């Protein structure tokens, strides 16, 4: 009888273990997809809770194609703590990045976000405008790795259309100027390719793109849309850097998603895509992202402008119960 009773008990235990295992597997698999992207992003851009508006973009550089920018855009990003570069020539941009890291070692950038054109995945393009005679240049992904490694930049996040196609092996190091793409307008300011002996496999520079190809977009906003505290913080940061306070800015969907650690953002590293995509997010999605960005900056500004509560609390507590208090330094 005792032996017969033990069998169901053992059976139940095994079943319970199985159920626990399955529950664990279900929970793990549900979050596995997002965690890989998040992990990748955290590597490139650590998720530090910014306490000051001027520290939001610390350690991160942004490259803007002039025609994807607005007047004073770089001043806005600089006010947020980013290093900002805007030029139609990749050679000039690379030179500016080098100068920045040499002159401002305390604000060195290790991650670069490219707010540029993808030219249907045929080359990273910087241009003044779509006028064929306008200043315009292209760079290959291999060239980026080769040129940015000596600058200590190990993460390049590409926020451009069909960026996954830029990593195709046949154009990885050297772009094809005769690809037949109408968007591939004359390279009036040159094409930057990797040197012939460059081996991308051994490059420590990680190229991060959205995992699916699509058309990336940028919205133009006004500083007036920020809260009063945020505007004050932006103006103060600009003043501290001896730059004029910005009035307008351009913010991409991907930048917002990275800043706010959006769970929908799916990233891939050193992974190429063949297929050209014409998919574009609805305007309303961009508007929602814009609103999230405004909320994010406002929240940081609110933290920044908030009085240090720790000191006051400690002071009050010390009056009531001096024995229990422990002195705390104010945050920020």
């Amino acid at each position: 009888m005792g032996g017969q009773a033990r069998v169901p008990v053992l059976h139940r235990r095994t079943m319970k273990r199985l159920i626990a295992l399955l529950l664990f597997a279900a929970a793990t698999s549900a979050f596995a997809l997002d965690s890989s992207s998040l992990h990748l992003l955290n590597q490139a851009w650590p998720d530090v809770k910014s306490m000051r508006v001027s520290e939001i973009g610390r350690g991160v550089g942004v490259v803007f194609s002039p025609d994807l920018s607005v007047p004073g855009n770089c001043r806005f990003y600089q006010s947020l703590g980013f290093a900002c570069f805007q030029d139609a020539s990749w050679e000039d941009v690379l030179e500016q990045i080098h100068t920045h890291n040499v002159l401002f070692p305390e604000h060195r950038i290790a991650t670069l976000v490219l707010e540029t054109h993808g030219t249907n995945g045929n080359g990273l393009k910087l241009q003044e405008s779509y006028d064929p005679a306008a200043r315009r240049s292209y760079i290959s992904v291999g060239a980026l790795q080769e040129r940015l490694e000596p600058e200590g930049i190990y993460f390049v996040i590409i926020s451009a259309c069909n960026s996954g196609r830029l990593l195709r092996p046949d154009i990885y190091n050297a772009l094809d100027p005769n690809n037949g793409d109408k968007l591939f307008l004359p390279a009036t300011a040159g094409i930057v390719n990797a040197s012939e002996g460059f081996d991308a496999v051994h490059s420590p520079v990680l190229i991060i793109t959205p995992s699916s190809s699509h058309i990336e977009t940028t919205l133009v906003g006004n500083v007036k849309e920020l809260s009063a505290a945020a505007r004050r913080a932006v103006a103060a940061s600009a003043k501290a850097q001896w730059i004029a306070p910005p009035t307008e800015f351009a913010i991409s969907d991907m930048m917002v998603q990275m800043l706010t650690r959006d769970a929908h953002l799916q990233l891939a590293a050193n992974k190429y895509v063949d297929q050209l995509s014409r998919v574009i997010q609805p305007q309303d999605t961009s508007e929602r992202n814009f609103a999230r960005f405004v909320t994010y900056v406002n929240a940081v500004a609110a933290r920044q402008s908030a009085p240090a509560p720790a000191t006051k609390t400690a002071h009050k507590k010390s009056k009531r119960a001096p024995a229990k208090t422990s002195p705390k330094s104010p945050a920020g």
Partner: protein
Amino acid sequence: MTNRSTKLILIALLTLAMTSLFGCKSLRDRLSGNDNNSDNTSMASSSTYSDNSSSALSSNSSSTASTPSSTDIYGTPANAGSNTGATGTGNMTNNTNNNMNTPATTGSTSLNTTNGSMSSTTSSTTDINTAATTDTTVNTSMASSSDTTTTTTKHRRMRKE
């Protein structure tokens, strides 16, 4: 009885595990409205769409996540030039995207163009190059029972093609 119920629980858990493995992402995307498939579906099933970003109409807004049908794979964007803005190749929302990257000097003068397949949509855009534009969309739909008129503020959008 205990065995049967345990087996049932096991089967349910297995199903849950498989769903979370393969279906979780798409489910989440669908729920959040970021799914491209659902965008296409909504466009196909409903002949009306709205240009407005009002939260009340957010369920319709996803219909713009579509591939512009009149642009070929290597096509010049609607703004690459001075006279292509009126072709409506940019975006089906018929908003400022048609001319988003074009400087004011080369901008097209006419933007009231694109018409959806079944719906009759009229958009009036105040200024293509201002930071914030106002789209007033009067949507007379064959599918919907009532007409919707909403005015919202939208930001100028640029495509990184």
